[in-house]
């Protein structure tokens, strides 16, 4: 059977123009009306891959590796500079269409317009508009001009339209950015549903967990080239090994922030593993978090605490000196506090670290640094991959 998507030796070159606003006069002088002074940049090179029917295919890579460009080529929004990419079916993308909305028109009118834009015919739209509106959860405002919508409502309506297109291939680019948690859940359910119907899905993500869970095969893009292709697990392993060795940031910019009155201030946070030269810590190793502080006045019984979140926001642990029964006494001047773990149970991945100092009642923050620090856990000796931690349990077999 003919594959759904077949890319052979695909390359995409961009011309980056140096001085964007060019006057007509200048263009005439250079005799290049439609050309800017440019440098060339190959966003993609020698890309070969095949996506079969009913397959969930992953594309992973760090920011700027060419993932989005590849998606656009598949969607037909851009054409490759060299090579061919043939797509045998209707491509749908899970996207935020709100940008194409007309503010003066009502929600329903915009649904009709944008559904047509995606290639639905009037009959199909008549069938689906009820589903679309219900999915978006804004039935009550559907006859209101969308300029009165909140940004969340706009986004939900935009996604609802694109997710109701009946595509042969669904392109999903970083789903987790969609609206509130409840709506995200519904989007993921819908993706599962389409997969169960035997549709192909292309999932672009830098979330390793998602790629592992959902994809059968994957490619890893690095600086525009396919670094590794194969089954998803293999590709993720190769990618993680690469990330471990180069200590590259896998995840984009972190959220978080810092607040507090700073009578006592956190001056530095140190992570100390078994190998002090390396910022990657292995599962099962010991790890010590050292919080350096400087108290500008004497503070009685401050509470030191920290929290670890997984990169997707899951709160894993949050110990502090009060709940652990450590009394800190009166603190003044500078010093440090240590939190030592002898056997980190965390599975490989990227984690965010928060540190904080509060008053004795944990009501008043002196210095709270929310997820401003990050560390990576390597796989060490464990082969476990499911979940968050390894409990180092022991199996025994009774026959």
């Amino acid at each position, binding site marked *: 059977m003919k594959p759904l998507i077949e890319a052979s030796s695909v390359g995409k070159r961009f011309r980056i123009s140096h001085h964007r606003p060019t006057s007509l006069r200048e263009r005439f002088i250079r005799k290049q009306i439609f050309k800017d002074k440019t440098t060339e940049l190959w966003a993609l090179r020698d890309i070969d891959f095949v996506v079969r029917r009913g397959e969930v295919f992953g594309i992973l890579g760090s920011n700027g590796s060419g993932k989005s460009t590849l998606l656009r080529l598949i*969607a037909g929004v851009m054409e490759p500079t060299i090579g061919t990419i043939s797509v045998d079916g209707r491509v749908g993308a899970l996207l935020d269409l709100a940008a*194409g909305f007309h503010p*003066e*028109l009502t929600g329903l*009118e915009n649904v009709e317009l944008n559904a047509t834009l995606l290639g639905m015919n009037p009959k199909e739209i008549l069938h689906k508009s009820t589903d679309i509106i219900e999915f978006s959860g804004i039935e009550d405002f559907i006859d209101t001009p969308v300029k009165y919508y909140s940004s969340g409502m706009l986004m939900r309506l935009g996604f609802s339209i694109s997710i109701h297109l009946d595509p042969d291939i669904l392109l999903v680019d970083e789903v987790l950015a969609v609206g509130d948690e409840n709506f995200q859940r519904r989007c993921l359910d819908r993706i599962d549903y389409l997969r169960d119907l035997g549709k192909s899905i292309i999932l672009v993500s830098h979330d390793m967990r998602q790629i592992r869970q959902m994809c059968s095969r994957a490619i890893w893009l690095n600086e525009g080239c396919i670094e590794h292709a194969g089954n998803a697990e293999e590709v993720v392993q190769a990618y993680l090994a690469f990330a471990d060795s180069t200590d590259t940031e896998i995840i984009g910019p972190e959220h978080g922030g810092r607040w507090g009155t700073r009578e006592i201030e956190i001056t530095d946070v140190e992570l100390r593993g078994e190998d002090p030269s390396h910022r990657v810590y292995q599962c099962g190793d010991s790890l010590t978090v050292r919080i350096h502080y400087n108290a500008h006045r004497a503070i009685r019984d401050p509470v030191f605490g920290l929290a670890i979140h997984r990169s997707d926001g899951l709160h894993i642990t949050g110990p502090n000196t009060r709940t652990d029964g450590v009394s800190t006494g009166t603190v003044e001047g500078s010093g440090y506090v240590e939190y030592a773990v002898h056997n980190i149970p965390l599975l490989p991945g990227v984690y965010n670290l928060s540190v904080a100092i509060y008053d004795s009642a944990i009501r008043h923050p002196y210095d709270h640094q929310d997820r401003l620090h990050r560390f990576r856990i390597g796989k060490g000796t464990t082969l476990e991959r499911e979940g968050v931690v390894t409990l180092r349990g022991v199996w025994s077999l009774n026959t």
Partner: protein
Amino acid sequence: MLNTSKTFPGRVHLLWEYRHLIGQLARRDVLARYKKSVLGFVWSLLHPFLMMVVLAVVFSYVGRFNTGIKHYPAFILCGYLPWLFTATSLSTSVRSIVDAGNLLHKVAFPREVLPLAVVGANLFNFVLALIPLFIYISVIGVRFSSMLLLLPAAILIQTLLLIGFSFILSAAHVTIRDVGVILEVVLLAWFYLCPVFYPPSLVLDQAPAWFSNFYFINPMATLMVVYRVALLNAATPNLDMRVYGLITVSITVIVLAVGWRFFLWRQRSFVEEL
């Protein structure tokens, strides 16, 4: 796959499949224009009618030019309404691609749809505006003749011509943003080169002979003469208008073909440039 077809029949077929989108986009333009007004859609009819009233009053009582033209207000409208169709189509369509920038990044659809929808919406408004004109013309006692058959032909030619121009303008504006500004000046000059307020004879009688040849190379000038023949049974200038009709048709075909080619050539880089 989309956007791969480069032949005209292939493109026409593709656009036919996207006819609903053109309709929806044109509908959006028409609806959005009167969305917040109390009378809403009625304005499409009322606007040309009120213009007619003003023109009739002005030219019947105030500034009585001795032009020797019968039904002068109707005469003006037969030139002015087609002119409005041209001017609004072009000045709106020139930005149609740039304004849709965000959408182009996300959804694949034949890009011609955007300028086509603009021309479509304006065509709709134009035809609607002809209704009060028809009523007015019957009221002042002009009898329609078989020349009325020229009206649909003229509308068709003008529409195709505008489509060709809008392809060129919208595609060029993506790369060279000066186009939009230049267009405004060109439209102003073009307006005075068209016989909207004056009969062509006024120019032709005073100008040297070679000028008249150039004068009707302007397809809008020829079209206005045709509109007046069709609607008002107006006398034609003392020239063989069939020749100029043929020239206008040829220009239309050339503009459309060249404009479309140009559009297809440029559209590859739309996404990168926006």
